[in-house]
C-alpha cells in the first residue's frame, strides 16, 4: 500500500453525487445547430480553416491551433458551416466571441480516421503534435492545452492521472472510470510513453467512488499504472493538493508541478488522448453530468461539443415553470450561465439546474467576525480574512505579500464563513485588478518613454531653430558692420575689382587640391602610357586653375 499524505484545510460539503449515478451513460442528442467557440481552452484562440457554406464531416478540423499555446477545434457532427460569427459563450462574463456555427445534416458522417495502433514505434514529439492537432485541452475544468503540458522542460518522474473529482454533484469522471476504465488506463500509459516513461504512474481516486475504483483496479492489472485511493475531502482534486496527497511534495509558490518533475492530467484527458492516437478520433465529445432538481431525469451524457445548453435541457426535459438558473461546473467553483444558448465546451464537466430550495440564493453577508474558520479551511494555507481586508481596501502590495496568487479559488473559505461573505469573489476581483494594474503599468511606462522622447525632440528642435536664428542675426550684423566700415562706393565703381566671396574661393581651392591628389594617385596607378599622359594633362590644367585662384585670393586679401 502506497503512503498517502494529507493537505492543510479542506471541507466536507454534501456530496450530492448519487442522483446522477443511477443511470448508465447515455448518448446525447444531435442538435440542429452546433456552436463551436474558437477559445474553449486557455491561450490563443484557434484559427478557422473552413468558410461559411463549406460542408464538414464529424471529426474534421475546422480551426487550427494558432501557435504552441492553443488547441485545434473539430466539427462534432457532419453538416454545413452556416456562420463564423460572435456568439455568447459559456463564460461568466457572458461576452460573445467568435464561434463556428454548423447546421447538422443528421447523418453524423465521420471523416476517415487515422489510427495508430502501435504508438510505441512513434517519436513522442510526433505524438504530441498529433494531440495538438486533435484539439486536446485539459478536461478537468481549466482547459489547459494538453500538448503544452506534455513538453515539460524538466525530466518527469511522476505522472499523476487525476480521477479525484472532489466537487459535489459532478460525476462525469466517475462515470468515465466505471464505464471506460480500459481507455483511462491505456491513455495513462500513452501519456507516460510521451513523457519518457516516468518512474511512477499514479491514478488518484477519492474513496467515495467504490465502483469506479474496482473497475479501474481491474483494468490496471498488469499495467504500470497504480491506482491510489485516498479519503474524500474537498478540494483534493486541485492539482497542487493532489500532488501533496500522492507524493507529499508541495508545489512552490508561483511554481509549476513540472518544477518538481510531476505532470498531472485529468482522467478525461487521458481517455481522450488514447482516443485521439489509437482510434484516430479527435476530441469532439465529452461526458457531462446533468443534475439538479429542476431536471426530469438526471445522469451522465456523452455530449457533442458545441451542443447548445438549451437543446440539451429540452432533450432531457425540465420541470415545468421557469428555470431559475443553470450552473456550469460544480456548486463550489462553477458559475451561473448568463444565456442558455451557449454551447457545451471541452471543459463542461457538469450542468446543474437546481431548484431554489436546492441551491438557495446566498444570504446577505454580515461583517467578518474574525473567527478564523476560513484560515482553517484554506487548502493553500492562506489567511483568507486578511486577504479580504486587503481586497476591500485595494491594497495590492499586501495582497501580493499574503500570496493572493496561490489562491486556487476553491471556495472552501466562503463555504465555512459564518458571516456568508463571498470571499472568493473578492479574491477573483482583486486578482483581476492586480493583473490590470500590471498591464497598465506597462502601457504607462511606454507612454512615459514616448512623452520623454517627444519632449527631447521638441527641445532639440527649439535649440536648433534658436541656433539658426542666432547665426542668421550674427551674419546680418557682420554684413551691416562691413558695409559701414568699408568706404562708400565711389563714382568710379567699375575701376574697383568685383567683390569676390573669399569663402567660396577657398572652398573651390580645397576641392581642386583634393582633385589633384586623386589624379596623382590615379597617375601612379595607371599602367597605360596613353592614360597616364591624359591624367597628367588634367593635372596640369588643375594646377593652372589653382594658381589662378590663389592669386585671386591674395589680391582680395590685400585689398581688405
Amino acid at each position: 500500500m502506497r503512503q498517502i499524505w494529507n493537505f492543510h484545510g479542506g471541507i466536507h460539503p454534501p456530496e450530492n453525487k448519487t442522483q446522477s449515478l443511477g443511470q448508465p451513460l447515455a448518448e446525447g442528442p444531435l442538435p440542429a445547430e452546433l456552436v463551436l467557440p474558437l477559445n474553449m481552452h486557455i491561450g490563443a484562440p484557434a484559427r478557422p480553416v473552413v468558410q461559411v457554406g463549406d460542408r464538414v464531416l464529424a471529426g474534421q478540423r475546422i480551426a487550427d491551433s494558432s501557435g504552441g499555446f492553443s488547441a485545434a477545434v473539430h466539427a462534432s457532427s457532419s453538416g454545413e458551416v452556416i456562420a463564423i460569427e460572435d456568439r455568447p459563450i459559456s463564460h461568466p462574463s457572458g461576452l460573445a466571441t467568435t464561434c463556428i456555427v454548423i447546421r447538422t445534416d443528421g447523418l453524423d458522417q465521420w471523416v476517415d480516421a487515422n489510427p495508430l495502433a502501435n504508438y510505441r514505434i512513434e517519436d513522442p514529439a510526433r505524438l504530441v503534435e498529433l494531440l495538438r492537432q486533435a484539439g486536446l485541452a485539459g478536461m478537468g475544468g481549466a482547459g489547459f492545452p494538453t500538448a503544452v503540458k506534455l513538453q515539460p522542460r524538466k525530466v518527469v518522474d511522476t505522472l499523476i492521472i487525476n480521477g479525484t473529482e472532489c466537487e459535489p454533484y459532478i460525476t462525469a469522471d466517475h462515470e468515465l472510470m466505471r464505464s471506460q476504465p480500459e481507455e483511462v488506463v491505456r491513455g495513462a500509459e500513452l501519456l507516460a510513453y510521451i513523457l519518457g516513461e516516468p518512474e511512477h504512474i499514479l491514478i488518484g481516486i477519492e474513496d467515495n467512488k467504490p465502483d469506479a475504483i474496482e473497475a479501474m483496479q481491474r483494468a490496471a492489472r498488469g499495467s504500470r499504472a497504480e491506482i491510489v485511493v485516498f479519503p474524500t475531502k474537498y478540494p483534493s482534486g486541485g492539482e497542487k493538493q493532489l500532488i501533496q496527497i500522492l507524493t507529499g511534495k508541495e508545489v512552490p509558490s508561483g511554481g509549476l508541478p513540472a518544477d518538481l518533475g510531476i505532470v498531472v492530467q485529468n482522467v478525461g484527458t487521458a481517455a481522450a488522448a488514447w482516443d485521439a492516437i489509437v482510434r484516430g478520433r479527435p476530441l469532439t465529445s465529452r461526458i457531462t453530468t446533468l443534475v439538479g432538481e429542476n431536471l426530469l431525469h438526471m445522469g451522465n451524457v456523452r455530449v457533442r461539443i458545441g451542443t447548445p445548453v438549451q437543446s440539451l435541457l429540452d432533450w432531457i426535459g425540465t420541470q415545468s415553470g421557469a428555470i431559475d438558473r443553470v450552473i456550469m461546473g460544480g456548486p463550489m467553483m462553477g458559475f451561473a450561465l448568463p444565456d442558455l444558448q451557449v454551447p457545451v465546451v471541452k471543459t463542461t464537466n457538469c450542468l446543474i439546474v437546481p431548484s431554489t430550495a436546492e441551491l438557495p440564493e446566498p444570504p446577505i453577508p454580515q461583517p467578518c467576525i474574525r473567527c478564523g474558520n476560513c484560515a482553517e479551511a484554506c487548502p493553500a494555507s492562506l489567511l483568507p480574512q486578511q486577504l479580504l481586508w486587503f481586497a476591500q481596501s485595494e491594497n495590492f502590495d499586501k495582497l501580493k505579500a499574503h500570496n493572493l496568487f496561490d489562491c486556487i479559488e476553491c471556495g472552501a473559505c466562503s463555504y465555512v464563513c459564518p458571516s456568508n461573505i463571498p470571499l472568493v469573489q473578492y479574491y477573483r476581483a482583486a486578482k483581476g485588478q492586480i493583473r490590470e494594474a500590471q498591464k497598465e503599468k506597462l502601457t504607462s511606462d511606454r507612454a512615459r518613454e514616448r512623452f520623454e522622447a517627444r519632449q527631447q525632440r521638441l527641445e532639440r528642435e527649439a535649440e536648433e531653430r534658436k541656433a539658426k536664428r542666432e547665426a542668421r542675426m550674427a551674419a546680418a550684423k557682420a554684413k551691416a558692420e562691413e558695409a559701414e566700415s568699408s568706404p562708400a562706393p565711389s563714382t568710379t565703381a567699375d575701376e574697383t575689382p568685383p567683390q569676390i566671396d573669399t569663402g567660396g574661393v577657398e572652398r573651390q581651392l580645397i576641392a581642386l587640391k583634393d582633385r589633384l591628389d586623386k589624379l596623382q594617385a590615379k597617375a601612379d596607378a595607371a599602367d597605360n602610357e596613353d592614360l597616364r599622359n591624359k591624367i597628367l594633362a588634367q593635372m596640369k590644367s588643375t594646377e593652372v586653375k589653382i594658381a589662378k585662384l590663389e592669386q585671386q585670393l591674395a589680391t582680395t586679401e590685400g585689398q581688405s
Partner: protein
Amino acid sequence: MIALITDNAVIFSVLALAGLAITFGAILGAASERFRVEGDPLVAQIDQLLPQTQCGQCGYPGCKPYATAIADGQADINRCPPGGHQTIQALADLLGVEAKPLDAEHGVESEQKKVAYIHEDLCIGCTKCIQACPVDAILGAAKQMHTVITSECTGCDLCVEPCPVDCIDMIPVAEGLAEWRWKLPPSSRELVKNLRPGDLIASDHQDRAA
C-alpha cells in the same frame, strides 16, 4: 617624537581621532562622488505612480512636471483624474500623508478607458492634433489624412480641442474576453437596500427557502 605621542594620552587620542575622522571623511566623500544620484529620486518615484496619460488635467503640462510639483510641495496629490483613487492611495503611501478624495476641480474619475478616433473622411490634414498629442500617437502629415495609433493612445483628450473640423471623437475601448475581470461583490450596504422586512436574520432566509 613617537615616544612623546605614546607617552602622552591626550595627544595620542587626539591624533587617533583625527586619523579616524580623515579616513572616514575620505571614504564618505569618495562614496558620495562615486554613487551620486542624478536628478531627484523622489520625483522619479512619484512619476512611476502617475498613469502617464500626459493629459494635463492636473494643471501641469504632463505627468513629470506634476510629479516635480508634488515633490516640491506645490501641488496636492489629488489632482489626477485618470489615476483616480488608486493613484491617490499609492501617492499617499509613498509620501506618508493622508489620502484624500479626488479634487473635482480637475475632473472626475472614469472607469471606462477611452481612445481617440479620427473620422478619416472628415480629416483635412492640418496636423494640429499631431502637435497636440503628448505621446506621438497620431500618425499623418500635412494634407494627408491622420490616424491614431490606438495601442499608444493614452486617452488624454488633448487632440480633440485643436481639431478645426471636429473630426476626433473619444470612443470607449470595447471590452473583450482578454480584458474582462471579475467585479467586486456588491457591498452589504447595497444589498441591505433591497431587503424585505424580516430578511435581516439569516434563519429567516433559511425558513423561506425551505
